[in-house]
Structures are given as structure tokens and as C-alpha cells.
């Protein structure tokens, strides 16, 4: 069955859709969770029952319309159900990043005025208890996994809540159905806090209509159905997971599979072999880095085979996927390659059955993107935001271009503002920022256009190109355009570079902080007999500086090709002796660089980069999750780079 049924039209809210699913797909698997050694399967009917019991339980605790339910934990079926349960009662679930430290979480809890919270385990409960001590509003704490909580007082278990709920349902059989029926498409469905790269997190309020229509439109063009499989492994507080796992899961009836733990995602992915897959570029990069490192350890013959077939795949794999003509010999060779390399590779990565794969969130390197497509995986870029309920543009099937983020999805309109900023309008456009009308007004115009904050343009074929975050783009003192993300992305495409932060706005030249990738550089070091004992030692090695300098030089050469960027070559860089970390506030929880914060924190290093010194003493504080502080210090070297001159024969394009 597909989405076009009339039933979908009458079910406006997710609780209503769940009821429909229980009727329509009662015995089909809805959620699976790797637990106790096997994939415990829950059918739609079971999910429906469980959810209702929990909803009624919440009601018995006094949870009602407009109440917020904080949900914090790893991707667990019962946490997804709790969202639906809260919605049944007209409440609003507020998923929170599970790796937030207590202080971050406290802000959200307070801002959302939540009285109820559901936590996965002791770790989250401890944070919430700490918060409860500070934030008076938080009243009821429910936990999913009771391990270690035996000695705690005043907590409720998930099962207990369900028990209460069953009692309530027995007493008032019609209560829940009445509540569910009250729900309308225009009601608030969920609140997602976006941490953003600057300032305090904002609570994006999305309605059922926002989510449902966006999810439906995207699912329709991709042909998602109840036989599809998805592995949810990205934070539940992130809009992507909310729309793929929760909204599309309910709407299309696909099976949502929850991994056993964060550590087993790779294995679980391999077991499930999803048909529908999403990964941010960082993960895609990591996978390739791992593949390359592991292949380096293989015997000469295997390495040769791998290289030869990967070269072939790069040449014809994408064309085959897009249905462009390919010679017979190449086709046959590709088949052989599929047997020997691509097939096994996809299999070990768990991507054999993938029908649709998306990546988004950050720019993805063409090599990386192409790697997956050449293997025959239908990897596509997606452009979207929380404020848009994700979907703005998607690469159409068979029209995938490495340098664009695709075309608009149905019902979404696109406009480029005079200053180059991308504006969009569509069914998924958010309702408001919770308790923040100024910010809402700033972002969303009265007629529904949203300022994306990104600079970009639409080409003749209707594909959207994104250049950079609009507000990050600046100018060097000589007036050269400085687009930091553009440079950083180029740097990050090198497997040895994990993260980069470029500086240059209102400066004379461009400089950069580099974070090396421990796995990739570590492996490289082993191969080149560079002994090291720890990250900091490795980061300080001269050989590693040489290695990174090569990458920077390559980026500079690339930049030299572009007359607009020619002057923005990286002239000095340093390798940070510590990884940028969300706990230290250097990254957002979705791992985006918070450049303002970094510039402030490492002002001394930046001063040294522009002050001509070759080493600088580095001393900074790190914060542990439990609030304690530690100190890192050492000397950091600074490397000067030659700038490349513009290529003499510039390509016409």
C-alpha cells in the first residue's frame, strides 16, 4: 500500500496515524530493537497498545494538553512511543540531545517549562535530578531502564506508568480516544531545540501539518513503503531523526530499527541492512577513512584489485547508477568488480540493500560522495533545516550532481535574496521559535518565507548550489572574498584532517586551525615509522605537520584556480593539540564548528598566527561532563605556507 489512501487524509496527527497503522498493518513490524541478543520486534498493533498505555499513564500523572515531555536518551523504541503518547494527550514532546551536559539540558528544560521528563537510564536521570534541584518546574521523572536506580527515590518506571495507564483505561475506556480525536493538523507536534553556532538554543515548534506534509512529499518521491527498513542511530533531538525515524516511520509504515548501543551501530547496521539510510558527511568520511586504512593492511594482490576496481567504479559506477550509457566491456568488468569488491564492501558496511541514501548537514566532498555512488549506492544530497521540517531540496533520482544540493521537493518554493541568501517557503515551514517572537520574525517573513542564512544560487536546471553560511562570509583587508566554510570543507576532505577552522575576516591573510584525524594519521604514522604515544604527541610531530602542509598546499592550489578565492589561500596554520569538542562548547551537538566561541577561547593562538611567531604556548581548560575542570598545556608549532600562484592555463569552466 502507498500513501495515497484516503485513510492518510483523515489521520492528521501522529496518534491518529498510529491508530491507522495498527488497523492497517497490525502484524507488520513497526519497531525493532537489538536487545538480549536478537532483534526484538514490535508490530504496529503492539506499539499501538504500548503507546496508549503509556499515554493513559501520563494522563494519570496529570499530563495534559500543552504539557511538555522532555525525552532524553539513545534511540529506543519506547522513547519514540512516548513521543506519540504525549501527542495523544495534546502534549508536546521535547527530545533533548542525550550527550548534553546538565547545564545545557537545564536551559532547555527551563525554557520549555517542562514538568515531565522521560530519561533512558541512570546517566540521564542523574542529570535531570541535578536539574530538578535547580529548575523548580520539573516534577515527574520517568525512567526506561532501571539499572542502578534501585536506591533512588521519587522516580517512576516506564512500566509503572503503563500500569497506571492500563488502570485508567479500564476505568475510563473512552478517555484516550476522545483526547486523540481532539488533535488537529495545525496543533504543535514537537519542539526541537537547535543549538546553533551562536547564541542560546532556540526551540523550533513544528506542527503536525509541517511534519506530515513534508515527510509525505519526500516519501512519495522516493517511493518509501511499509517494507522499507531504517536504522535510527542519530540523536532523537535532531530534526533529521525526528522526520526519518518518527514521522516517516509512522506515515509510510517502514520499520524503525534501534541499535543495541552506540558502540554497536556498525554491526547492527550490517545485520539490518537498511533500505533507507541517512548519514551526515562526517560519518561518510569516517567510513571511507576506515575502509582505506583497512585496505592498506591487505595483501598486495588485494590492494591492487581494490585500486583497479575502485578506479573503474569511479569512472563508470555513477553513470551506471544514473542509467547513462556505458560500454559493454566496462559493464562486464563492473559486474566482476561487484562480485569481488563492491558487493563485499557494501555488505561489510551494511549498505547492500540501500535503496535511498541521503547525506546533508554539511558540504560533502565530491570524492566522498562519488565513492558511495560509484559503488552503486543511490547516495543523494539533501538540503534542509529544522525550520523547514528538513526538506527543501533533494537530488532527484538519476539527476545527481556533485556540486549541487538538488532540486526543490514538491510544494516548496525557493528564492534567492538580493544579498545571495537562500529563502524558501513550503508546507514544512515552522510555526515559531518557542517564546521568542523576535527571532521568529527575524527568520520568517509574514508571508511565510524563511531566511535560511545560507548563501547560494539556483542554476539553469533548477539545481540549488550552496556557497556558505551567509553571515560567515567576510572579506580580507584587501577586499578578497573570504568564505571560511568553503576553505574548511576543502581541508576536511582530506582524510587526515578531521576538523578545520579558518580565520581571515578583516585580516590580512587566511590562517587555519587543524584537528588531525587520529585513526587516519595514526595509521599513516605507523606506516612511516613515526612513533607516538598519544594524540597530543602525534599532533605535535614535525612529520605530521609536513603531512598536513601537503594537504594545505593542495587546497591552496585549488583556491588559486578560482580568481575570486585566489587571495584567500591559507598562509599559516597550526595543529591544535586537542580535539574540538562539544563538551567544551567548541562544537554544537550536531558537531558544527562554533567559530565565534573558538576565536574567543583561542585568541592567543590566533594572535600568534597573525603575530609571526613560530611557536606558541597553549594552555586551556577542559570541562568534564561532571563539571570538573582539567588543564591542557603545551607548545604548539605554527607552519608558514607558500601560496600558490594562479594556474597559467585557466580552465574555461
Amino acid at each position, binding site marked *: 500500500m502507498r500513501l495515497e489512501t484516503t485513510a492518510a487524509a483523515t489521520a492528521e496527527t501522529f496518534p491518529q496515524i498510529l491508530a491507522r497503522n495498527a488497523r492497517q498493518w497490525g502484524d507488520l513490524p513497526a519497531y525493532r530493537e537489538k536487545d538480549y541478543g536478537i532483534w526484538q520486534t514490535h508490530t504496529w498493533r503492539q506499539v499501538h497498545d504500548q503507546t496508549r498505555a503509556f499515554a493513559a499513564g501520563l494522563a494519570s500523572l496529570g499530563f495534559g494538553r500543552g504539557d511538555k515531555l522532555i525525552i532524553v536518551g539513545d534511540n529506543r523504541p519506547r522513547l519514540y512511543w512516548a513521543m506519540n503518547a504525549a501527542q495523544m494527550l495534546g502534549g508536546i514532546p521535547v527530545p533533548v540531545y542525550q550527550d548534553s551536559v546538565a547545564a545545557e539540558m537545564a536551559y532547555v528544560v527551563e525554557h520549555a517549562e517542562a514538568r515531565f521528563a522521560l530519561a533512558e*537510564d*541512570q*546517566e540521564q536521570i*542523574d542529570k535531570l535530578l541535578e536539574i530538578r534541584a535547580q529548575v523548580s518546574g520539573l516534577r515527574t521523572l520517568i525512567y526506561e531502564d532501571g*539499572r*542502578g536506580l534501585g536506591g533512588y527515590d521519587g522516580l517512576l518506571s516506564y512500566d509503572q506508568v503503563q500500569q497506571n495507564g492500563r488502570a485508567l483505561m479500564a476505568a475510563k475506556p473512552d478517555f484516550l480516544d476522545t483526547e486523540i480525536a481532539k488533535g488537529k493538523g495545525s496543533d504543535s507536534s514537537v519542539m526541537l531545540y537547535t543549538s546553533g553556532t551562536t547564541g542560546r538554543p532556540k526551540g523550533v515548534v513544528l506542527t503536525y501539518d509541517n511534519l506530515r506534509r513534508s515527510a509525505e512529499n519526500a516519501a512519495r518521491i522516493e517511493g518509501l513503503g511499509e517494507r522499507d527498513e531504517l536504522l535510527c542511530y542519530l540523536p532523537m533531538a535532531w530534526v533529521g531523526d525526528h522526520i526519518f525515524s518518527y514521522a516517516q516511520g509512522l506515515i509510510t509504515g517502514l520499520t524503525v530499527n534501534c541499535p543495541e548501543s552506540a558502540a554497536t551501530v556498525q554491526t547492527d547496521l550490517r545485520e539490518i541492512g537498511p533500505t533507507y539510510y541517512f548519514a551526515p558527511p562526517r560519518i561518510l568520511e569516517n567510513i571511507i577513512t576506515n575502509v582505506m586504512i583497512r585496505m592498506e*593492511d591487505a595483501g598486495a594482490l588485494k590492494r591492487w584489485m581494490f585500486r583497479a576496481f575502485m578506479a573503474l567504479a569511479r569512472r563508470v559506477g555513477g553513470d551506471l547508477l544514473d542509467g547513462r550509457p556505458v560500454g559493454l566491456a566496462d559493464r562486464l568488468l563492473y559486474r566482476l568488480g561487484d562480485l569481488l569488491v563492491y558487493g563485499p564492501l557494501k555488505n561489510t558496511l551494511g549498505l547492500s540493500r540501500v535503496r535511498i541514501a541521503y547525506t546533508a548537514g554539511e558540504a560533502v566532498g565530491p570524492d566522498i560522495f562519488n565513492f558511495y555512488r560509484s559503488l552503486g549506492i543511490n547516495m543523494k544530497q539533501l538540503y534542509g533545516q529544522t525550520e523547514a521540517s528538513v526538506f527543501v531540496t533533494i537530488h532527484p533520482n538519476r539527476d545527481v550532481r556533485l556540486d549541487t544540493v538538488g532540486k526543490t521537493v514538491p510544494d516548496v518554493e525557493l528564492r534567492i535574496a538580493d544579498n545571495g541568501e537562500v529563502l524558501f517557503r513550503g508546507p514544512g515551514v515552522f510555526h515559531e521559535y518557542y517564546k521568542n517572537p523576535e527571532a521568529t520574525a527575524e527568520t520568517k517573513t509574514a508571508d511565510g518565507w524563511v531566511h535560511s542564512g545560507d548563501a547560494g544560487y539556483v542554476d539553469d536546471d533548477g539545481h540549488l548550489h550552496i556557497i556558505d553560511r551567509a553571515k560567515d562570509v567576510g572579506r580580507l583587508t584587501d577586499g578578497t572574498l573570504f568564505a571560511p566554510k568553503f576553505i574548511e570543507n576543502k581541508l576536511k576532505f582530506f582524510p587526515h584532517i578531521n576538523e578545520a577552522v579558518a580565520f581571515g575576516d578583516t585580516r590580512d591573510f587566511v590562517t587555519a586551525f587543524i584537528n588531525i584525524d587520529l585513526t587516519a594519521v*595514526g*595509521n599513516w*604514522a*605507523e*606506516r612511516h*615509522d*613515526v*612513533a*607516538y*604515544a*598519544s*594524540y*597530543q*604527541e602525534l599532533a605535535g610531530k614535525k612529520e605530521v605537520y609536513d603531512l598536513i602542509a601537503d594537504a594545505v598546499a593542495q587546497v591552496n592550489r585549488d583556491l588559486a584556480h578560482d580568481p575570486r578565492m585566489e587571495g584567500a589561500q591559507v598562509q599559516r596554520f597550526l595543529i591544535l*593539540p*586537542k580535539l574540538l*569538542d562539544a*563538551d567544551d562548547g567548541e562544537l554544537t551537538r550536531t558537531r558544527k564548528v562554533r567559530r565565534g566561541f573558538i576565536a574567543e577561547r583561542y585568541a592567543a593562538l590566533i594572535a600568534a598566527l597573525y603575530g609571526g611567531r613560530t611557536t606558541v604556548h597553549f594552555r586551556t581548560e*577542559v570541562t*568534564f*561532563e*561532571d563539571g*570538573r575542570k*582539567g588543564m*591542557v598545556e*603545551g607548545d604548539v608549532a605554527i607552519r608558514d605556507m607558500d601560496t600558490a600562484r594562479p594556474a597559467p592555463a585557466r580552465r574555461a569552466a
Partner: protein
Amino acid sequence: MTVAQASPAADAATPILAVSNVEVIYNHVILVLKGVSLQVPDGGIVALLGANGAGKSTTLKTISCLLRAERGDVTKGTVTYRGERVDQLTPNELVRRGVIQVMEGRHCFGHLTVEENLLTGAFIHGNNRRQTAEDLEKVYHYFPRLRQRRASQAGYTSGGEQQMTAIGRALMSRPRTILLDEPSMGLAPQLVEEIFEIVQRLNTEQGVSILLAEQNTNVALKFAHYGYILENGRVVLDGDAAALRENEDVKEFYLGMAGEGRRSFKDVKHYRRRKRWL
């Protein structure tokens, strides 16, 4: 990261023992060590710390060439002793060069007496009876308990005495470097102190360099000069023992300190703070 400014390499220009980028694979498919590098300065006591399965024993066995017996292969990296590569030698040849390992779990010959056990360690220097007698005397000097128990069957001596016998046996080959695997395992606290004190005396009086793998971080960092922390087959942190003791992660995960005092075993959480190794 290196906690202290001074690295061991700076202490002694040429370390007596250097492990460089060693990768070890067991049974052809199981990767155990992923590029471990460490150095033992001449006359130093270096501790290898880490959880079970982190690769401590494997590192020691890599050095003492005992890996092959357990189906392990060194697939990358080198081990040098006094500037010479030794990773392809047999354990026997290595003992002749002055490196001996005292295995975990003690491995005494249970049916031999303590003295016979000690004498088995003297094989390496042939049949020089006077030399052997001297060595034996030296061992008894350091381990007076063994002199008392010299005629007892090793199998019937206590765990501590077996550990002493094992170390004593190693001493009989007149080693310059001893690799000690878990000397404190299964021993009462008093004995642990006793054994470590003897090890320290051997180090200061005889100039024997010692590389020890130990779970008991407290004791290890008390006696060692320098430490490496291994996790999942990698060195994640190294530094002077004193500096390591001050590291927040070491304090929390290896010494059981929370804030000011020791954290009670009763109050352990089901989750842990992420290790930062900074």
C-alpha cells in the same frame, strides 16, 4: 598526550628498550595492538597500565618474542634493544641478551622445589657452578622468604612465594631488563608492597631496567618512574608517574578518586564519564 614536559627519551638519550609502532594480530584476523610505541630508559621502571584486554600482556609478549606461541603475529613496527632489532629473535636468544619476562600467573614448575625452580633459570649461563651459586645467593639475599622455603615444592607455596620464585628465577639469568606481567595479581596487599619494594631495590641496587604491566595503578605509579596507559590496543596517555597521578582521567578511572577523596565502591554509577585523555 604527554603530560609532562620531559619525555623518557630526554632522560636517556638512547633508551635501552624501544617499541615502535607495533601492530599485532592474533589468529590472522584479530587486531590487538594498533601501533604501540614506548620506551624504557636504561635503569628505569616503566609501568604499562590499562584494562584487561587493552594489550599490556601482548605488548610484553611482543617484546619477549613469546607471541608466536600464542598464534600472534607482529605485522608492523619494530622492537629495538640496545639499538638492535630484536623482534625476530627467539625468546631464548633474547634471554641471552639480557631481557627476560616473568609471566602473568607466575608459571612455576609446581612439582619442583623452590630452589630447583630457581636453578632452572640459570641454564642460560651453562654449567658454571660457582656463578650459579652466587646468583642463587643473590636471589636469596633479595628474597629471604625463598631461602626459608627453598626445599618446599613450589606448588605448595603461597601465591606470593610463587611470584617471588618466578622473579627470582628470572634473576638467575642475570638480566639487564625484566618484563614483569601483573606481579600483584591475587596477592594480599602487604605482599604486594613487599614485592614491589624488592623490585625497586633490584632496580636501584642492580641497575635492572623494568617494564611492568600492572592493574594495580596505585602501586605501579608509586614505584614506577614513568607510565603508559593503554586502551584498546593504543597508548592514550603517557608521562612521568607523578604527573600521571595528577591527571584527572587517571585519577578518576585508574585511582578511583572523585573530587577530593576516594570514591566508594558502593556508589559506582552504571555509566561513566567519557575519557578525554587530556
